[in-house]
């Protein structure tokens, strides 16, 4: 279903996934695909939040570990991680998350501004907080989150 521009103004589709104890949402417009079990090739001497690279049908895609980016402890070794491929500008970037859970339609009016610090994570990584019945969803600001740091 293609939402009309007017409907789009108030309703947004969010893909929900977990990273550590944080439930994150990402506007589905950014999400290209979700992958499991792709071998990540480690890359050294790069920022620590870069887990490595994967081969996405011939394209070399950088994988960013969301936990490291948020400053959380790494996931236990045995756990299965998922990679959410997002489109940013003209390149695809993989987000390493714990698990992808759901897709919800969020009403704009239920989205609230982010507090400056969300469970220890800087607030500028998020666009807002969406309230579900049971929990809170932190909506990712993908541009800020994946902005390159020039050291």
């Amino acid at each position, binding site marked *: 279903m293609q939402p009309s521009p007017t409907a789009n103004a108030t309703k947004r589709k969010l893909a929900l996934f977990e990273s550590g104890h944080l439930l994150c949402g990402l506007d589905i417009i950014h999400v290209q695909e979700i992958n499991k079990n792709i*071998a990540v*090739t*480690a*890359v*050294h*001497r*790069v*920022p620590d939040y*870069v887990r490595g*690279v*994967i*081969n996405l049908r*011939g*394209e*070399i*895609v*950088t994988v*960013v570990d969301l936990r490291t980016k948020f400053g959380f402890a790494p996931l236990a*070794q*045995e756990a299965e991680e998922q990679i959410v491929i997002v489109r940013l*500008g003209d*390149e695809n*970037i993989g987000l390493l998350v714990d698990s992808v859970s759901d897709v919800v339609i969020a009403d704009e009016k239920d989205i609230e501004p982010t507090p400056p610090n969300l469970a220890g994570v800087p607030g500028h990584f998020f666009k807002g907080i969406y309230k579900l019945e049971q929990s809170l969803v932190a909506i990712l600001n993908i541009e800020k989150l*994946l902005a*390159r740091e*020039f050291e």
Partner: protein
Amino acid sequence: MAFIDDDETLQSFKDESHEHLDGIENDLLAIEEAGADIDLELVNKVFRAMHSIKGGAGFLGLNAVKTLAHAAENLLNKIRNKDLVPTTPVISGLLDAADLVNRLLNQPKGAVELDISGPLAALNSILSPESDQAAPPPGVSHANKPGTPGQPASWQGLLTEHSAEIADNRLGGFGIFVLEFERSSDGEQQGLSPTIQTTLESIGQVLGSQTDDSSAASPQPTYVLYATMMERDMLVSFAGLPPERVHEIQEQAEPAPASPVPTVEPSPIPAPVAEESPSPSPSKNVAADSAPQTKAGTDSSLRVNIKILDNLMTLAGELVLTRNQFLQIVHSSHQQIFDAVSQRFDLVTSELQEAIMCTRMQPVGNIFNKFKRVVRDLAHKLGKEIDLVLEGGEVEMDKTIIEALTDPLTHLVRNSVDHGIETPDKRTAAGKTPCGTLQIKAFHEGGQVIIEIVDDGGGIDTARIKEKVLSMGTHDKSQIEAMQEHELLRLIFLPGLSTAKEVTDVSGRGVGMDVVHANLSKVGGVFDIASKLGKGTTITIKLPLTLAIIPSLIVSVGTERYAIPQVNMVELVRVPASKVKQRIERIDEALVIRQRGRLLPLISLAEALGIEKRYYQVPKTKQVKVCQRQLIEDRRSCTAPSGEDSENLTSAGFGVTTGVSEVNQENRESPDRRTSPQSAVNIVVVSVGKFHYGLIVDKLLDSEEIVVKPLGSHLRQSQLYAGATIQGDGKVALILDVVGISKFMNLSSGSVRVRDRGPQETERINPDAQTLLLVRNSPKEQLAIPLNLVSRIEEIQRDQVELTGGRSNMQYRGSTLPLFSINEVAKVAPLQEDSSNLYVVVFPFGEREAGIMVSEIIDIVTVIGGLDDTTHKQPGIMGSVIIMKKITMLVDLFGIVAAMMPEWIRHTSLGTKSGQGQHILVVEDSPFFNRQICGFVSDAGYKVFSATDGVEGLALLEREKIDLILTDIEMPNMDGLEFTARVRTDARWSGMPIIAVTSLNSEAAEKRGLKAGVNEYMIKLDREKVIHTINSYLKH
């Protein structure tokens, strides 16, 4: 009518115009060269090109372009009609106009208009020098034949009346003419006769007509205002009028603000593309803003030969068919069919890939031709005479490389013209021709493209470089003094260095060479520079053919795989565990390896990547395991029961020269000592320009052609990687950037040089040491071949040896390699019959190559002395030496060739008795080498005097008349260096040719030798070369 706002049409017009303009430049230069003796065909070609641009620009509403093209067209017309000699100012005007058109075309939509008035005025002043833009009435100017400037505008009313139509037609690319018909001949009544009207209407549009009643002429003329696509000269013949009666109405270049004629005002329609109005900042110089615009002009479209496209289509079809077959097999699964199909799949894919690569290939001439203009303009400006020679323009390279090459090459060419080639007076004063030569050549060599820029100018003054570098403070005096010529020359790549005495606007500001170097490195270019003061400079650039697919070596560290481009590789070295301690050591925190008498800096890849002594994950279990690595240099020698102990013999498949090493004989107590392959150290020696270093890796896996893929934006900042590739199993391997790694690890040629001269170095390396390749045919008999005569070692199958004409040969690198076995000449054991493999030791002989077949390669060892040339001497064997407690026979490669191929000897310097009894002094302490050298020198027809050290040599020199000296370096009493220095300081022998002979060609030793004053530095046993050199010195 309206502006065409169709991007596609505009783009194709631009593409086409760029092509026209590219051609125009060279053609104009050719026209200039021809001078008054014009090549009509060429002028016509340029004329047509300009005309096409004018037409297209008019159609698309690009007024500025149209006006310029039109003016240029007029000028060309005059040249064509021989009314104007294409002198340098004329051509310059045309070139400027072409440049401006180019820039106008490259302008992004809606950009600030470029001011075209300057070049336009220049063209018009050439066109009508007398009037010089002042005479024509406002609004219109006339481009008539000379002699009729500023015609009385009897038809002015006509123009005013039809101004709107004129403007419309102009925008449509039509030319506006006034035709002057005479009533008497053209018809009885006033106005235009219907016949003529019909004729004219067929290829244009009659906008109006008017009879000049006021005219005093008896047949009163009728003026017809006519719009047509025809050229003036065509119209003249078409209308059947004398040329002076056809007037072309020019559009005024700069619409005067107070123009009474509204006709030439720009179109009222808002023009997003280009409009003919003066630039808001009239001072904006055309030349000043050229750079950014031309940058934007690097085209994103590409013209592809239709044949290549056809081929691609066919291959794509094949691929689809093969895929279909594959799908079928998935269901049927027959192994045999599967094999066949996968083979075809493989073939089609490779061909497809190759064909696609072809579409990216462009002749390098595309950029070469640009230099004609660059050199011409610069030479004029600087008052120099330069003959530009372009060669190899047809050589093709990847489009990306060609584009990346344009700026650096332009810079180098400008440099050569500006401070390479001297002014005519200076050249004459220096005894050269007043006209300098600048050669730009492109050619293929070893799978690479070489571009050479050669000038016969003043060369680069290294003394000035020294001065400059010292004043900049980047190097200290001792460092600079220690540098060799080529190292000094490379310093011009330092940022901020310029040796030009005066700063000109062309070059000399010290920016550039570092940028040139950086840009070339980006596309994998390797840069070299050679210069002789007063003679000229040669700059050599080596470039890969393509960037997309590169042959690489796959290596591993831990569980990770990396690719190293083969372009960067020099050799592979494997140091067995038993020799690690001896050959690899740590000098002030840096690892180094002894390699052929030099210390080579080492970088552990694991350390560079930060994975040494850390943990690595074992796949699947994800358990953490400690990597039990110790510091490499601390490893103990260990012995293991079995395994081949042949170090450094890399397979020829890597296309890398075989690495060699020296191991002192005394360190090898037992021939049975073997090494565990696990603990050996693998080193990939890579080059960064002329500087080499070794990269320690865990394993050497395979050599592969890899497809280079770019890395994501987060990884691009890392200087360690050049990209990534996907391997056969779908996994990603990163491509290492060897330049970046050396920078990251703070390795530079400067820091190594200091170590290169460390005291350990000179102590341990004995110039008398002879490095030998140990081989055998039978387990009982050991043979040795001097390694410095060997070029390569190849492992082959026995059936590759072909017997033709009673001789053994093999096909090798596209030609036939004669093969000998030692037992054919000497009484030694024959090749082992039972093994299917054998080794071929390839060695050069004069211009040719030959191979010696042996069953086994044992090792490479270094021996010092102990050579016996009497006991075992026989044809093919020059003597013996004891190695590893075994009597080892020294193979005489020349003796074998002489016995097997006597006709080869005749063709070399050894064959003819070239010497005419000149006196040669041989100074050599080792009796073995003394006899060897004396033997072959006297065989060549010279009279030999032999001395065993420098003191004896000097004594002989006093007594005898000597023409040339051959001297060893390492000798008791007085060594070769001191001997040479003594000879040189004596006025009687200052011009004496001195050739140093040594068993070891180490660069450091050679440097010392040349410093002491020897003319040549040669390898003792390479008798062909030694004799050749003697001959060349004694020829006159």
